[in-house]
């Protein structure tokens, strides 16, 4: 009992604090052997990474991350809710469909990334083959490098993200008492009206939570971009977690990497704080 909290302190709390400490040092490959030589640099690392025109600027990856997260979530949430509403109806084959819908969620991210890397191969992949068959646009597209890489990443991410929302929305739907619908029907409410006035308000708390968790998950997503786009990725699809990885384990610049990591955490603070507040109010 006490040992497990001690272990958690060692492996979770101390590292988090240390990340902040490292972010104000010049720790790099040259000083990692003797950390006391690294030297404090104050907020220089933060100024470097937040300087729009500086060579170490992370504003590009930051913008990519925010856009990628927002677009993925905005597409995945309605899809997930639609899927949940669908399989909440009675029809033969429903049980099978429920399991099928879990597949993108239960596939390991590195396998999902592998499939979409194959689909987006220029000229030979399924994406270009289908475009050629349909006669839409060019039949040889650079999907994984250049500006398209952002969209390739977003499409793959939506594919793997919506079942998470679906699972949570379905649980919430199943908790809505059938009497509500009966009463509404007696009062003459139509199908759409019942959805807006009963279903949506009833599942709203869960939806907001799903939205929060989805934002956190997408913003932290590392494996999908890392395996899908290779390393280093196209500049247009370089997201923060991958940028932090490159700065720390390719450039071995731990000081700047930690500064980016702290920026990453600060951006996430809003959804995280909301999630924690929600979790706490549920407890009491």
């Amino acid at each position, binding site marked *: 009992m006490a040992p497990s909290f001690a272990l958690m302190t060692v492996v*979770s709390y101390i590292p988090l604090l240390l990340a902040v400490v490292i972010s104000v040092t010049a720790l790099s490959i040259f000083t990692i052997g003797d950390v006391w030589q690294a030297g404090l640099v104050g907020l220089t690392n933060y100024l470097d990474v937040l300087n729009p025109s500086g060579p170490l600027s992370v504003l590009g990856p930051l913008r990519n991350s925010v856009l990628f997260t927002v677009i993925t979530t905005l597409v995945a949430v309605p899809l997930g809710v639609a899927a949940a509403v669908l399989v909440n109806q009675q029809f033969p084959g429903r049980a099978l469909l429920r*399991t099928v819908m879990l597949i993108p969620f239960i596939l390991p991210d590195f396998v999902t990334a*592998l499939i979409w890397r194959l689909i987006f191969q220029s000229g030979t992949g399924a994406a270009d083959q289908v475009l050629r068959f349909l006669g839409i646009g060019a039949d040889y597209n650079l999907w994984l490098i250049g500006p398209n890489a952002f969209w390739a990443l977003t499409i793959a991410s939506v594919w793997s993200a919506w079942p998470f929302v679906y699972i949570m929305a379905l649980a919430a739907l199943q908790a809505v008492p059938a009497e509500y619908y009966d009463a509404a029907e007696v009062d003459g409410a139509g199908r759409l009206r019942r959805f807006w006035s009963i279903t949506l308000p009833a599942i709203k708390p869960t939806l907001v939570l799903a939205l929060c968790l989805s934002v956190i998950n997408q913003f932290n997503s590392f494996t999908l971009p890392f395996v899908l786009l290779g390393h280093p990725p196209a500049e247009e699809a370089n997201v923060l977690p991958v940028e932090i990885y490159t700065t720390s384990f390719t450039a071995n610049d731990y000081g700047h990497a930690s500064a980016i990591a702290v920026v990453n955490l600060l951006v996430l603070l809003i959804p995280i704080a909301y999630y924690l507040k929600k979790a706490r109010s549920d407890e009491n």
Partner: protein
Amino acid sequence: MRTDIRPSKPGVRNRGPAKWILYLCGGAFALVVLLPVAYMFLVALQPIEVAGSTLAPDRLSPRSFIDVWSAIDLASYLANSLVIATITALASSLVGFGAAYVLARFKFRFRNFLRLSLLACYTTPGIVLLIPLYVIYVQIQNAVSVQIIGSHALLILTYMSFSLPYTIWMLSGYLTTLPADVEEAAAIDGATRFQTLVRIILPLTLPALVVTAIFSFVLAWNDVLFASVLTKNDTRTVGIGMQLFVSTAADGGLPQWNNLMAAGIITAVPAVVLFIIIQRYLISGLTAGSVKG
């Protein structure tokens, strides 16, 4: 000509949309999910010369499922992942159970803060923790002059820093729902606290323990980030093994898409099977006990 003479059953009204709309939408969702997966299987079965460059199902054979074992060191990746994920699952369940019991049954200062900080850990990005952990590990390694980076034990310990907060949170939520009377009855019968814990509480918690163990297992199995920094040639896990395979194959001219897809299918099986087993519990697992009702 048809006349609708179905008797209207009381209480069961046809409030859903027409069946064909349901099947149309259901079919669309199934296609979106299954087409990429079917494509993966198709390419895995194609001969190496054309694999991944055509949609034609010609000359299909399952030989890539044999060839892939010699194309990459898949057996070693699987063995490493199996050892690391299993120990992570067992260790975090065992340690987490004890901590969860304390959280659920004893009132003490900072209890709520502690519970909340467990959730905070759950939302912290792995990459944010990886840098300080790596710096600490390098310092320890230099101090004791023993190579610890690349060992199974270190990777397991690292995964536990993520699986443990989650496990404690889940189990303590579950334990608070168990009635305290059982424990009181056992105490009256003269059982010690430890006996009660092992003989009574543990069996009752077993279903929840299975779920948290599977989540911890899958967490370790699916990881690429930590494995890419904390493994060496002979301790590589499936995640990083696959990442290296796909990047070297892409650079090497011959992409071997059939072998890549076969390896992807083989490495996905354990995670998929385990999740399907606990499919009913996925919901509680996902929300980490935060949504009640």
